[in-house]
């Protein structure tokens, strides 16, 4: 299948593709600044999923009839699109999962459980999302392996000073966020890949934020596995992907068994289908995968270089405007080129939940809380932060709305 020709997308027209951006919240035009939690969906994605159910719905890889063939083609076609989007060498490097969390768990239970033992080590950073912490804690419980962490430095970058000391034969897995959902920090994947190579450890990248927000060439990244999900890149919830090197997939056991993933099943033993089907037990989220395919088509039409350029522009503008607000502290790198578009902040003694309520009244959706990164909150020594996060449709007007609402918060809290 040939992808549509790439045309530079006009930002003002692009917003028209998102029905929800035309709606109101609390009587104000919706200003959606929570794309790091989940993104809104363009009509192209909604239509692709709708069309699938209207025209092609059947179970995949099962029926001999034409409709089932069509369903299978759309499902496998989506795999091809996602594979091309991340520059994979083959579609079989993409396993569809339920999302980033289940992709990471698949590696933890499929690879970690079988390759780790007493005294082995898993290296993470203190900025990881719970999705890249808790599965490894569970694996440590099962295997007797232990977790070690790289800290975050004063500039909110991963502190690599202690890396050499942690790289030895005990090290089996390195887990690193490609882009922090709290700080925006871009993880030092290349450095960690090199460190891992020297001791034959594997690297799994939590790409939940990295893949949606920057051009990626996953084979060139050098990691062994990359986990990401559709819903943070304009696609639906309920589907994600695990990219992996073919030789690593061969070392991995299926973490789930059932239909679709077998070659033959006997009463006591079974053999597995080939990768990627070996890791896709049960009926997959077919319509969601189709929506995922439409989402990467949409992003490709914009061009990921353009997505990244816009993100740097809008983040740069936001950091400047936020700096005008007295007593506002941003947690994250100051250089827009060294970070993504998730901007965490606190404002004097106004609790982030109070900020979120105040902004909500202005039609502005931001996230307040620990952002599923409690270890990081302890490092930052705050119970919670407020977070504004941007995506392709975010505008400077929306940043302006955020900033004036923050002044309103100052007034309400007697800080003016």
């Amino acid at each position, binding site marked *: 299948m040939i992808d549509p020709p790439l045309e530079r997308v006009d930002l003002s027209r692009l917003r028209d593709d998102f029905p929800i951006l035309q709606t109101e919240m609390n009587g104000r035009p919706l200003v959606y600044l929570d794309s790091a939690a989940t993104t809104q969906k363009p009509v192209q994605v909604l239509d692709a999923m709708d069309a699938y159910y209207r025209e092609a719905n059947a179970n995949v890889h099962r029926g001999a009839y034409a409709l089932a063939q069509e369903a299978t083609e759309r499902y496998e076609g989506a795999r091809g699109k996602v594979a091309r989007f991340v520059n994979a060498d083959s579609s079989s490097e993409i396993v569809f999962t339920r999302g980033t969390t289940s992709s990471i768990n698949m590696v933890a239970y499929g690879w970690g459980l079988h390759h780790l033992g007493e005294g082995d080590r898993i290296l993470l950073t203190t900025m990881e999302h719970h999705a890249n912490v808790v599965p490894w804690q569970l694996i440590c419980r099962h295997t007797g392996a232990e977790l070690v962490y790289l800290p975050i430095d004063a500039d909110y970058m991963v502190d690599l000073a202690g890396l050499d000391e942690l790289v030895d034969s005990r090290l089996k897995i390195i887990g690193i966020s490609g882009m922090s959902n709290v700080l925006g920090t871009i993880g030092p994947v290349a450095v960690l890949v090199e460190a891992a190579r020297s001791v034959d450890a594997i690297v799994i990248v939590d790409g939940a934020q990295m893949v949606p927000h920057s051009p990626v060439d996953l084979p060139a990244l050098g990691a062994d596995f990359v986990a990401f999900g559709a819903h943070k890149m304009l696609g639906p919830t309920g589907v994600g992907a695990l990219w992996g090197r073919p030789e690593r997939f061969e070392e991995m056991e299926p973490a789930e068994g059932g239909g679709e993933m077998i070659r033959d099943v006997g009463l006591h033993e079974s053999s597995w289908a080939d990768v990627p089907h070996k890791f896709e037990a049960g009926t997959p989220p077919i319509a969601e995968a189709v929506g995922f395919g439409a989402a990467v088509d949409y992003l490709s039409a914009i061009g990921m270089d353009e997505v990244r350029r816009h993100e740097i522009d809008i983040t740069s503008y936001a950091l400047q405007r936020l700096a005008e607000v007295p007593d506002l502290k941003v947690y994250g790198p100051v250089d827009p080129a060294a970070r993504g578009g998730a901007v965490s902040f606190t404002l004097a003694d106004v*609790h982030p*939940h109070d900020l979120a309520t105040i902004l909500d009244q202005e039609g502005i959706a931001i996230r307040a809380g620990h952002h599923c990164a409690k270890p990081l909150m302890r490092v930052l020594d705050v119970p*919670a932060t407020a977070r504004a996060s941007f995506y392709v449709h975010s505008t400077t007007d929306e940043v302006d709305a955020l900033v004036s609402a923050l002044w309103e918060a100052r007034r309400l809290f007697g800080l003016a």
Partner: protein
Amino acid sequence: MSLDQLYREVILDHYRSPRHSGSLEHPDAHADGHNPLCGDEISLDLTFDGDRVSDIRISGRGCSISQASASMMANAVSGMTLDEVRDLERRFKEMMSIEEGGEEIDVKVMGDLAALQGVRRFPVRIKCADLPWTTLDEALSQRS
């Protein structure tokens, strides 16, 4: 405007200078309250003199609504009999219920707590105002 009704001066005052803050060395009852959704935390110690609350201390972290509600509650229930506490709790829950109507809010009885009535218009924040009361409930249930 409703936000001004939510963030009344008296609420911000309790938030910034919580009354009865701290803990007790030998409490007769203790409970920890936690709102996993937003991370608000309350830790509560009580001592009794007969069926009267002789002392109450609260420590916590969280939004202005949960922390002000805790401070106001501590102020109000300190020195009350258990029956009086239960009655106040009932009135408070009623004040927080989303349905309009019900009993008129008696400012003389409710004191500063009446300032929290604006919370009712922000349904997601009602659980913040409720947290100290559910924590108090738990502490009281330990006693009986």
